[in-house]
């Protein structure tokens, strides 16, 4: 019949159109040997174009842009297409999509949980050959200059002897923020152990009726991970096995719960002015007198009387510990990765860029303006940076960043990195949920902890 023919024709048109799009375009990348590529880029100054995606707050982007422009002036034959792609989660999804469609940039920031799968699928390259190259690599002294925890982290993503990432200058960590005026008035120093935290909190509660201590819960698992690790739980072993349901973890949980139930400790959602995940809005209203939160967020923890806050001076200290001989704290921050969808020349250029971005002199302005942590001793010892670290209250906001960074630097020796495993973000979500439901929802700690460890979705 006539109309059947027409339908068939119609559907054929649609199908052909659809199939036409199925032709993959796989550009084959020319690859030279590493030495050849180095010669081309550094000696012959052959023009190379690379693209660099970052995910940083719009306020900080200009400083990074400046650093990239300076790089291009130092290496005129390398052109960097630099762009800001939004928050790190958006950026990661974008990158994942682009890997499949083979349209990745040359370099990007990525966070730890992303590494295992990217490595397994061959999406990013091993940077060890570049690190160890005699011409463009880092000498032993230079390598020793980088803080070990950051260096070990990027070497831990792949098998031994490989290095799949490179530290960015966006490292931060949690610090203890406290009401210095109140503490000074009572002759107290910043607490060094959890016993002290609990004792101070008890006294604060008795005197002011308000809880003494709060813990930010924006990273989901942050509080439980740090505390249970301090109590001795492996949390995630070096082999990547999750071990959170053990007596030490339970003890840590019960410790917080006891103090919360007695009103000595609190959490952001329970403070009238805070709500949500961050304690600072409650802290500035003296609804708590100490809290643990991100170092880079210090500017929001300083009270401003014009905004209706209370009036006091802020102090920052290292995190309290369970056992001062077995101190534990965790660092946060992204790492660079170079994608395999690139020529060797592009990879050489990318390596030159990311090492440039971590060199001391280039970073000082960035570090001072953003409050991110230095990643090498030479950055810390830089004279301008030392001046920054010695800021006084009359230097304004710079002082706040300085005391935050100082507190973080105290912890650098025992700072750990997160072991990157598959599903790390799912774990973080579940642990965060467990923490909140036990402490706020009133769930039974032992059974909830066991259930969280058991579910592996």
């Amino acid at each position: 019949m006539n109309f059947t023919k027409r339908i068939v024709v119609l559907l054929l048109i649609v199908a052909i159109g659809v199939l036409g799009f199925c032709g993959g375009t796989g550009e084959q990348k020319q690859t030279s040997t590493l030495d050849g590529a180095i010669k081309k880029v550094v000696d012959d100054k052959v023009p190379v174009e690379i693209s660099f995606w970052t995910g940083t707050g719009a306020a900080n982007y200009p400083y990074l842009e400046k650093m990239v422009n300076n790089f291009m002036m130092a290496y005129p034959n390398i052109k960097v297409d630099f762009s800001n792609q939004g928050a790190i989660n958006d950026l990661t999804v974008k990158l994942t999509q682009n890997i499949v469609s083979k349209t990745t940039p040359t370099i990007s920031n990525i966070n730890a949980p992303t590494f295992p799968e990217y490595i397994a699928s061959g999406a990013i390259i091993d940077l060890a050959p570049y690190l160890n190259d005699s011409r463009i690599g880092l000498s032993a002294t230079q390598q020793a200059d980088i803080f070990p925890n950051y260096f070990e982290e990027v070497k831990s993503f792949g098998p031994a002897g490989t290095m799949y990432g490179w530290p960015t200058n966006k490292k931060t960590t949690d610090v203890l923020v406290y009401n210095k005026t109140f503490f000074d008035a009572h002759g107290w120093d910043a607490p060094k152990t959890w016993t002290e935290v609990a004792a101070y909190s008890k006294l604060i509660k008795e005197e002011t009726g308000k809880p003494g201590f709060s813990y930010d819960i924006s990273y989901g698992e942050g509080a439980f991970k740090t505390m249970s690790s301090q109590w001795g739980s492996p949390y995630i072993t070096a082999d990547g096995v999750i071990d959170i349901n053990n007596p030490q973890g339970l003890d840590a949980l019960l410790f917080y719960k006891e103090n919360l139930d007695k009103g000595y400790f609190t959490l952001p959602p329970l403070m009238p002015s805070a709500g949500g995940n961050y304690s600072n809005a409650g802290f500035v209203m003296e609804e708590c007198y100490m809290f643990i939160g991100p170092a880079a967020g210090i500017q929001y923890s300083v009270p401003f009387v014009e905004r209706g806050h209370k009036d006091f001076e802020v102090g920052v200290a290292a995190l309290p510990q369970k056992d001062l001989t077995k101190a534990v704290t965790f660092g946060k921050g992204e790492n660079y990765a170079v994608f395999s969808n690139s020529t060797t020349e592009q990879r050489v250029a990318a390596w030159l860029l990311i090492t440039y971005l971590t060199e001391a002199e280039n970073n000082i302005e960035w570090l001072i303006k953003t409050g991110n942590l230095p990643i090498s001793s030479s950055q810390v010892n830089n004279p301008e940076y030392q001046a920054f670290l010695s800021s006084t209250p009359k230097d304004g906001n710079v002082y706040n960043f300085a005391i935050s960074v100082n507190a973080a630097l105290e912890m650098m020796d025992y700072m750990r990195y997160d072991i990157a495993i598959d599903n790390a973000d799912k774990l973080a979500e579940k642990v965060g949920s467990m923490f909140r439901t036990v402490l706020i929802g009133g769930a039974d700690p032992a059974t909830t902890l066991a259930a969280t460890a058991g579910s592996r979705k």
Partner: protein
Amino acid sequence: MKERQLHTIFYVILVLTALLVLIPFAWMLLTALKSEGEALMVPPILFPKRPMVSNFILALEIAPFLSYLSNTVIVAILVVLGSTTVTVLASYAFAWMDFPIKNILFFMILGSMMIPQEMLIITNFMTIARLGWMNSYKALVLPYVIHAFNIFLLRQTMLQVPNDLFIASRIDGLGHFRFLRKVVLPICKSTLYTTMLLSLIWIWNTFAWPNLVTTKDSLRMISNGLSNAFTVNTGSIRYELQMSATTLVTIPLILIFIALRKHIFEGMKRGGIKG
């Protein structure tokens, strides 16, 4: 007498409802005028002490506003033009033509409304990337040209055109296309403008797709360009600037609505067989 009382009650109810409906918009506007400290105050205050009109200027300076706006306008115009064409043709076919598997096809088009965008995005991104259309207007416009909601709406309206008009047009010797142009479209003008407005709002607010398909700042639109423009280091947002930018962005939409208002709500003044 009763009429007047009734009308007064109507007005009162409308005013109350309108006030409730307005609250979020009013808050957005007021926050745009607050200082940085005031925007963060807890408990939040309603009115800023001194309206800071400078926020609007600052917001314009920080983000390449004009670029985002012009991109959005270009995409919007292209989408409205394309989508209207596609919609008109398709709705007319479903309303006034008869052909095999008509209902199946209509249901298929309806079906495209039922799929969450999140699932379509992943495959569509691959398609766009394979075609090499990343960072292009084509990629931003084409997926939005097909809008089943509009086709459905226009089809409903077209079905309301009286049969007599159709018969008369046949008698006059008009084919389908002339009937569509000369009779149906003028009658459905108000719905047509409504569909154009709805497409426009859709484009203005859409975020996920442009975010994926544009990696260059030069092609960003208002929705995804501004989403990150006012964030500080740890992810905290400068709300007074974010709201200023957002308010500025709604102004064109409000103006367009006021302009189109008359056409949408005009009603079928002419409706006679004469025509």
